[in-house]
């Protein structure tokens, strides 16, 4: 088990089940990735360089006016639901 992260907790947050074997191998992989990423903090950057965000889109944010555009009908929206009842999507029980 890594000192820096808890693989079981990460699996829980990602909502996936991992076998003991998978936990071991993924822990190794993640440790290597973390080590690599940690190397970035050794870079000596000035404050301006630190302010650069890495964003895949080099464009300005576009805003839209607050005007309604019709889209899916109720039937279209719900047509792909695995299950529905009384006009609602039905999923396995889940609560906060």
């Amino acid at each position: 088990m890594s000192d820096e992260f808890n693989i079981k907790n990460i699996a829980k947050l990602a909502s996936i089940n991992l076998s003991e074997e998978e936990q071991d191998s993924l822990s190794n992989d993640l440790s290597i990735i973390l080590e690599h990423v940690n190397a970035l903090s050794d870079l000596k950057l000035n404050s301006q360089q630190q302010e650069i965000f890495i964003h895949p889109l080099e464009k300005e944010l576009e805003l839209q006016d607050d005007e309604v555009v019709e889209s899916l009908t109720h039937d279209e929206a719900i047509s792909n639901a695995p299950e529905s009842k009384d006009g609602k999507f039905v999923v396995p029980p889940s609560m906060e």
Partner: protein
Amino acid sequence: MSLKPTIGIETHIELNTNTKMFCRCAVVDTDEPNISLCPTCIGLPGALPVPNKKAIEFITLLALSTGCEITSKGMFHRKNYFYPDLPKNYQISQFDLPVGLNGELEIVIDENKDYIQIERVHMEEDTGKSSHSGSGRIESATSTALDFNRSGVPLVEIVTKPVISSSKQAVAYIEELRQLSIDLNISEGRLEKGNLRFDANISVAPEGSTELGTKVEIKNMNSLRSLERAIDYEIQRQTKAFEEGVEIVQETRHWDENKEMTSTMRSKEGSADYRYFSDPDLPDMLLSEDFIAEVETLMPLLPKAQREELMTTGLSLSQSNILSKSDEWIKKLYVKVFDQTKDSVASYNWITGELQGQMRKANIEVLPEWFNDGYLPEIIELIKSDKISFTSAKIILTEILTTDTTPSKVAEENNLYQENDSEKISEMINQIIQENQDIVDRIKSGEDKLVGFLVGQLMKQSNGSVNPGMAKELLLKELED
């Protein structure tokens, strides 16, 4: 050891835009499920979010109105989680670069002002509504049903610093924030409809300690009353635990309105558990100086300034506060009535007391069309000049609220004008004295209380038209002679 509670409040305000935050689906107020959806707000693959300009304006307006520093280069973040109420598996929110930082809100409790520091003001999209089926308790639900009409509706979240020290302060803060959102015209501010939702972070620590205790988050408070009671309950619970040496766990607790207690909901996620990262679908949000200047032009007279203005008419701080939190027509009516009477106390008392009281009793929600701005000043003047009694004034008000008439007409038609002619009153007094000689004798032998009986007789005989103060004075004089 004396303990000191520390409270921070997170409030979500639903913005009253026509469309959702990242798509142009209509914001609807209906029980009919799933009728305002598109690929974006139900998280279909490939759908891309485009922010609502009006929502960004509203959030900036709220940030400016609370004196926040505006982040000129803001960012949208994904807050990752797996509840099905947002089918994308993340909520678009803002993390380290919110719209506004470090603001302040003035609150009023009785005749005192206080200031609540605001940590941040940021955008968040609302979730869909889930309901759980199956019998009995929520834990034994067999399925979850989802309505995504609310999914993606714009919210502004306002987070205070941990500076609130009592439930009373917390309630005053929410009342102020609610009024602010109404005056800014960014929300209807209706708690019962969920327009405003709040969670409280509460901890206790020894008085004088510089460190805060372990904080517990309280959810599910749907009214100001439940906010007040939940905070009081939680402070008591934590104080007891602290005194008994029981560890206070960092967790989210649920306020149960019926049982009047909080209970464990889940162990609290740390912010790292949400694995925030910048949303690659949304470029940085640059708020230009021009944009901010444009938003500033929308700024109305804020509740704080309204109070200051009202106080210049002679009202106290608490009276000004009550008026500033009243409906717009009441505020306007006060100004008009005061302008005509120059009597702040009478104007305030008649509007917030008798007028609103009678309207509530008669289920009248808006003043009738014929109700002239001059009517209340006329009534106030009639009382001041001793032409009518207070009781008659109330009768007049009832009439003009339900019938298209005027105060003077009602007074005339119902003989409500007071008799102020001392000769006429003396004549009536003499008659009463003659008819009640036995009572007069008893008064003269020391039974002072019976004077009231004679005044009563006089009022009865005159159909209440005699000025009671004058009548008593004249009666006493007559009895002495």
